[in-house]
C-alpha cells in the first residue's frame, strides 16, 4: 500500500512542489505571528524556535484531527528511534498544513498523504525524482529533532494568517533581499556577514510563497522561472566563454607566466581573427570564383606551364619553391585572366580582384584603428608619477597568477621593485649618479645603432652579392649561396634582438619601459631588413620589365613570322592553333613578387619553428635530463630554461603580418598561408611555453602594452601598404598575365566598370565628385575636423589635470582646517 502511495507521490511531484511552497508560506506566517509575540535578534535562532513551536502545534492538531490511521502510526513510531520520530513529525506537520489549506479535504485523504510523506522521507535516498525535497526535509527534521525534547510541553495556539501578517512577511523578505545585495559593501566582520547570509536560506524557502490568493501559484511559478532564467543566463555566459577560441589555454598560460606573456597570445588570437576575415575575402571572392568559373587550366598560355618547365613542374623541390604547377594556379596573380566577366553569374573578376585587394587593406586599417581607440578608452588617464608608492603598494599584485613558482617570482619582484624604488627615490634626491645612468643609456643606444648599421650593411652586401649570383645563374652556386639572403635575414632577425636585450641591461630601465625600448629597436631592425628586401625586389621588378619589353618585341616578331609562314602557303586558311604551352610569354613580375613573398613567409615560419624546437625544446630537454649528471645545477644556473621572449615574438608576428599585407595583392594565397601559420603557431607556442619555458624573473603586468603593439601594427600597416600602392599606381601591369593585363594601370578597372556597368549619370556624378575642386576642400575639412577634435581632447586632458590639482589642494586645505584647532591650542 505504501509503495502505491509512493508512486502516486512521484506522479504528482510537480503539484506537490507547489503545495510545499504553500506549506512553507503558512509556516512563515505563523512564524511572523510568533515573532510579534517574542522579539528575537537572530534569524537562525528565530527559525529554529519557530520550528519547535510548529512541532508542538502539530501535536495539538494531531489530537484534534483524530485520524485513526495516523494515530496508529504515531504510536508505532513513537516506539521507534529518534530519527523515525523526527521523520514522522515532519510528515505530520506537512499533513496538518495541507489540511489547513484545504479544509474541504477528507480526513482519509489526509491520512494517505501523511503516509506518502513518511515514505518519502524514509526512502529519500532511493527516489531520484524527489531527492531534493527529501534532503530538504531531512535537514529541517534534524533541526526540529534538536529542539523537540525540551519544548514538548509547551502549548501553541493555532493561528490563522491575516493579510496583515502576509504583508509583514513580504516586507521581511524584501528587507533581507536588500540586505544580502548590499552585504558585500558593508564594513562588518566576516562572521557577522556569514550569519546574515544565512538568511538567504530563509529567502529561498519563503519567497515563492508570497502573493495573494489565486495569484500565489502563478507567483511561485514566476519566481521559479526567474531563477531558472538566471541560471540559464549564467550557464550561457559560461558557454560563451567556452566558445572563445583558446581562451582556456591562454588563461592557463596567464596564470603561469603573468599577463605580459598572455598578452602576446591574445594578440596572436586577435591577429588570427583578422586573418580569417582577410582569408575569407580573398578565398571567397577571388580564388574560388576563378577556380570554378574561370577558364580551366591549360586553356590559355598564362594558365599553362611553359614547355621548357613541364618536365620538372611536378618536382617537390620546384613546388616547394612555389614554381611549376603551383605558380600556374589560382595561388598567384599571373593565373587570373582578364575576362571582364566570368561564368554564368557574370562575375566581374578583375574588378573583384582589385576591390578585394583594396578592401583587405581598408578593413585592416579600420580594425586596427578601432581597436586602438577602444584600448585608449580602457587605459585610464592617470599620471604615474604622483602616487608612485601607493600604486606599487596596492596595485602591483597580479591576481591572475595561479602558479606557486610564478607567485614566488612575483613576490620577489615586488620586493626588489620596492627596494629599487626606494633607492631611486634616494638617488633622485642625491642625483649624483644620474650622469652615469645617462651616459650608460647613451652608450647603449650607440651600441644598438652600431649593431643596426652592421646588420643593415651585411644584408645590403648579401643582396648585392645575390644579384651578382643571379647574373651568373643560380645553378653554378651552392644551396648556401642561393639561400644566403633569406638565411642572413632570418639569422640576424633572430640574434640581434638577443644582443639588444643584453645591451639593454646597461640602461637599467623598468622592465615595462625596457620592453618598449626593446620593441622599438627590434622594430628598427626588422624594418631595415624588410625595406632592404623591398628595394632589392624593386630592382628585380625593373629588370623584369626590361626583359618584358624585349619579350614583347620578340613575340610580335614571332607572331609575324608565324603568320607570314602560313600566309605564304594559304592566304585564306585560319591561323594554325598552337598549344598554349608553346606560346612565348613575358616574365610576369607580379607573380615573381608574390612568389618572393610566399617564399619569405615560408622561410620565416620555418625559422621560427626550428628556433622554437632547438632553442627552447632541445635546450629544455638537455637541461632537464643532463641535470642528473652534471657538476652544477643546470636548471637554476647557467643554461637554465629559456624565458618567453615577448617582444621578439610580438614583432615577428607584426612583421609577418606586414609581409602579408604587402604581398597579398600579388599572391592571393598569402592570407590562407598565414592563417595556417598562425593556427599552428598558436598550438605550438602554447605547448612550447607550457613545456619548456620558465616564468620571467621579473613578472610584470602588460596592461598598457597592448596599445603599443597596435601602434606598431598601424605603422607597419602603413609602411607595408606604401610599396604595394606604389607598385599598383606607378608600374603598368604585365601585358600577358593577371586580371589587369592589357590595361595601362591596374586601377583602370574602376573606370572601365564605371563606364560600362553603371548608367551614364553615375559616371558623370563620379567624375564630378573626383574633381580636385571637390576633393581638396573635402580633405581640408577632414583635416580641420581632426585638428578640432584633437585640440578639444587636449583641453579636456588639461582640465582633468587641473581638477586633480584642485582636489589635492582641497585635501590639503581640509587637513589644515582639521589640524587648526589643535595647533591653536598648542600655541596657547
Amino acid at each position: 500500500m505504501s509503495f502505491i502511495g509512493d508512486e502516486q507521490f512521484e506522479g504528482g511531484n510537480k503539484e506537490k512542489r507547489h503545495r510545499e511552497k504553500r506549506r512553507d508560506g503558512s509556516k512563515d506566517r505563523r512564524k511572523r505571528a510568533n515573532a510579534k509575540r517574542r522579539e528575537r535578534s537572530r534569524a537562525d535562532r528565530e527559525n529554529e524556535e519557530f520550528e519547535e513551536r510548529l512541532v508542538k502545534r502539530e501535536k495539538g492538531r494531531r489530537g484534534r484531527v483524530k485520524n485513526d490511521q495516523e494515530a496508529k502510526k504515531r504510536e508505532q513510531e513513537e516506539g521507534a528511534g529518534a530519527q523515525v520520530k523526527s521523520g514522522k513529525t515532519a510528515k505530520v506537520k506537512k499533513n496538518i498544513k495541507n489540511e489547513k489549506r484545504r479544509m474541504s479535504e477528507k480526513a482519509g485523504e489526509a491520512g494517505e498523504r501523511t503516509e506518502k510523506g513518511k515514505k518519502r522521507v524514509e526512502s529519500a535516498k532511493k527516489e531520484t525524482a524527489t531527492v531534493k525535497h527529501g534532503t530538504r526535509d531531512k535537514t529541517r527534521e534534524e533541526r526540529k529533532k534538536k529542539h523537540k525534547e525540551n519544548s514538548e510541553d509547551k502549548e501553541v495556539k493555532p493561528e490563522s494568517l491575516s493579510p496583515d501578517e502576509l504583508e509583514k512577511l513580504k516586507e521581511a523578505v524584501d528587507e533581507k533581499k536588500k540586505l544580502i545585495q548590499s552585504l558585500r559593501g558593508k564594513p562588518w566582520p566576516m562572521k557577522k556577514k556569514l550569519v546574515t547570509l544565512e538568511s538567504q536560506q530563509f529567502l529561498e524557502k519563503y519567497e515563492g510563497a508570497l502573493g495573494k490568493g489565486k495569484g500565489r501559484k502563478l507567483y511561485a511559478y514566476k519566481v521559479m522561472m526567474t531563477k531558472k532564467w538566471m541560471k540559464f543566463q549564467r550557464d550561457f555566459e559560461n558557454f560563451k566563454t567556452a566558445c572563445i577560441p583558446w581562451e582556456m589555454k591562454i588563461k592557463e598560460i596567464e596564470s603561469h607566466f603573468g599577463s605580459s606573456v598572455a598578452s602576446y597570445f591574445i594578440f596572436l588570437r586577435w591577429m588570427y581573427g583578422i586573418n580569417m576575415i582577410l582569408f575569407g575575402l580573398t578565398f571567397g571572392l577571388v580564388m574560388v570564383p576563378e577556380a570554378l568559373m574561370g577558364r580551366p587550366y591549360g586553356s590559355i598560355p598564362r594558365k599553362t606551364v611553359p614547355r621548357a618547365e613541364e618536365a620538372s613542374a611536378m618536382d617537390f623541390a620546384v613546388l616547394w619553391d612555389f614554381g611549376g604547377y603551383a605558380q600556374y594556379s589560382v595561388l598567384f596573380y599571373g593565373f587570373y585572366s582578364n575576362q571582364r566577366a566570368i561564368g554564368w553569374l557574370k562575375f566581374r573578376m578583375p574588378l573583384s580582384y582589385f576591390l578585394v585587394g583594396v578592401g583587405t587593406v581598408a578593413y585592416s586599417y579600420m580594425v586596427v584603428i578601432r581597436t586602438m581607440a577602444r584600448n585608449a578608452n580602457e587605459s585610464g588617464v592617470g599620471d604615474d608619477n604622483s602616487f608612485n608608492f601607493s600604486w606599487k603598494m596596492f596595485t602591483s599584485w597580479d591576481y591572475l597568477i595561479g602558479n606557486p613558482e610564478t607567485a614566488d617570482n612575483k613576490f620577489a619582484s615586488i620586493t626588489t621593485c620596492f627596494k629599487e624604488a626606494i633607492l631611486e627615490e634616494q638617488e633622485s634626491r642625491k642625483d649624483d649618479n644620474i650622469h652615469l645612468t645617462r651616459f650608460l643609456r647613451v652608450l647603449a643606444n650607440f651600441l644598438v645603432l652600431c649593431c643596426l648599421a652592421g646588420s643593415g650593411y651585411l644584408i645590403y652586401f648579401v643582396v648585392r652579392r645575390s644579384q651578382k649570383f643571379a647574373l651568373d645563374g643560380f645553378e653554378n652556386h651552392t644551396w648556401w649561396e642561393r639561400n644566403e639572403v633569406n638565411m642572413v635575414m632570418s639569422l640576424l632577425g633572430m640574434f640581434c634582438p638577443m644582443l639588444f636585450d643584453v645591451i639593454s641591461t646597461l640602461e637599467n630601465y623598468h622592465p615595462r619601459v625596457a620592453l618598449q625600448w626593446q620593441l622599438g629597436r627590434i622594430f628598427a631592425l626588422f624594418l631595415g631588413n624588410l625595406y632592404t628586401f623591398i628595394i632589392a625586389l624593386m630592382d628585380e621588378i625593373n629588370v623584369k620589365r626590361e626583359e618584358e619589353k624585349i619579350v614583347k618585341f620578340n613575340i610580335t616578331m614571332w607572331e609575324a613570322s608565324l603568320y607570314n609562314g602560313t600566309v605564304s602557303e594559304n592566304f585564306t586558311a585560319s591561323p594554325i592553333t598552337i598549344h598554349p604551352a608553346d606560346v612565348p610569354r613575358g616574365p610576369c613580375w607580379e607573380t615573381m613578387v608574390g612568389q618572393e613573398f610566399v617564399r619569405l613567409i615560408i622561410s620565416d615560419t620555418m625559422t621560427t619553428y626550428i628556433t622554437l624546437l632547438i632553442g627552447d625544446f632541445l635546450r629544455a630537454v638537455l637541461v632537464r635530463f643532463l641535470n642528473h649528471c652534471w657538476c652544477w645545477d643546470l636548471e637554476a644556473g647557467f643554461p637554465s630554461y629559456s624565458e618567453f621572449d615577448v617582444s621578439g615574438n610580438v614583432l615577428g608576428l607584426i612583421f609577418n603580418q606586414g609581409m602579408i599585407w604587402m604581398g597579398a595583392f600579388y599572391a592571393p594565397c598569402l592570407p590562407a598561408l598565414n592563417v595556417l601559420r598562425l593556427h599552428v603557431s598558436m598550438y605550438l607556442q602554447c605547448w612550447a611555453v607550457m613545456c619548456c619555458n620558465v616564468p620571467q624573473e621579473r613578472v610584470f603586468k602588460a596592461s598598457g602594452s597592448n596599445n603599443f603593439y597596435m601602434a606598431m601594427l598601424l605603422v607597419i600597416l602603413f609602411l607595408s601598404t606604401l610599396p604595394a600602392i606604389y607598385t599598383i599606381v606607378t608600374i603598368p601591369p604585365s601585358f600577358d598575365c593577371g586580371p589587369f593585363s592589357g590595361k595601362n594601370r591596374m586601377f583602370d578597372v574602376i573606370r572601365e566598370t564605371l563606364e560600362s556597368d553603371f548608367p551614364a549619370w553615375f559616371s558623370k556624378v563620379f567624375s564630378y565628385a573626383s574633381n580636385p575642386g571637390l576633393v581638396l576642400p573635402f580633405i581640408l575639412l577632414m583635416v580641420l575636423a581632426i585638428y578640432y577634435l584633437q585640440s578639444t581632447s587636449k583641453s579636456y586632458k588639461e582640465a582633468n589635470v587641473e581638477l586633480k590639482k584642485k582636489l589635492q589642494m582641497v585635501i590639503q586645505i581640509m587637513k589644515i582646517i582639521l589640524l587648526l584647532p589643535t595647533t591653536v591650542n598648542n600655541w596657547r
Partner: protein
Amino acid sequence: MVSGAIALAFLPLLLTLIIRYRYYFVLFYRAVLVRIWKDCVTGLSREERAYQYVLTHSIPGDPDSILDAFDYWCNKVEYISNIGPKKGKILDRILMEQSPLTVLELGAHCGYSTVRIARALPLGARLYSIEMDQTNAAIAEKILRLAGFDDDTVELIVNPSDEVIPRLRSDYNLERVDFVFMDHWKKCYLPDLQMLEECGLLGKGSVILADNVLFPGAPKFLRYIRKSGLYEWKIHRAMLEYSKGIRDGMAELVFQGIK
C-alpha cells in the same frame, strides 16, 4: 661551403653569449685555468698555496686577520670557494642569534669557514668539523692552530660525512646538534640531511645552514625541504663568493619536528 656572410650573422649570438655569461667565463678562468697553470708551475696544491700565503700575511692567533688574508688571496690571487666575506656575515649573524653549543660543520675544506664559525661561538661550545680529504684536513688543522683554536673547541674529523654522521651519537656522545653548516659536495646535502634526521640529532630549533644552494646548486635538497614540512626555511640570496655577477644563496632551515 658556408659563406662568410652567414658566419658573420652568427656574430651577434656570439657577442650575446659572451656578454651574458661573462661572469661564468671569468669564474672558469680563475677557478680552473689559473689553478691548473699554478699547479704545474709551483708543484703545490691550491690549498697549500693558500696556506703559505695566509701563513706569511696574517697575525697568528688572530682569526680576523687570517680570514682577511684568505679573502684577499681568493679575491686577487686565486680562487677557492670558501663561504666568502658577504655570506660569512650572514653566517656570523645567525650564529650570534642562536649561540649554539654543539655545531656540526660538513666540509671544512681548508678551514676558512671553520675559523669563521669557531670565532663566533659562545664559551663552552664545541664545533665538530668533518672533512673527507686528508690533505685538506691537514691544512685546515694548521689554519685552526694558527688561529689559536684548540681541540676542545674544534674537533676535526677526517672521514666522509656519510660515514661519520651515523657514528656521531656513539663515538662522540652527541645527543643533539644545535647548528649544522653544510658546505661540502652539493650532491651530499640531501642524503646527509636525511641521515641527520634519521639519527635523531636534530631537535626542535636546530638550525641548518646550507651554502651554495643556487650555484652550483642543490636542487634536490631544495625540493626536499620544500616538500618535507619538517622545517621552516628561507633562502638568503647573495652573490657567489669572490664573484660579482653570479647569483647564489644560502638556505637557512630551522628544524620544527613533526607537528
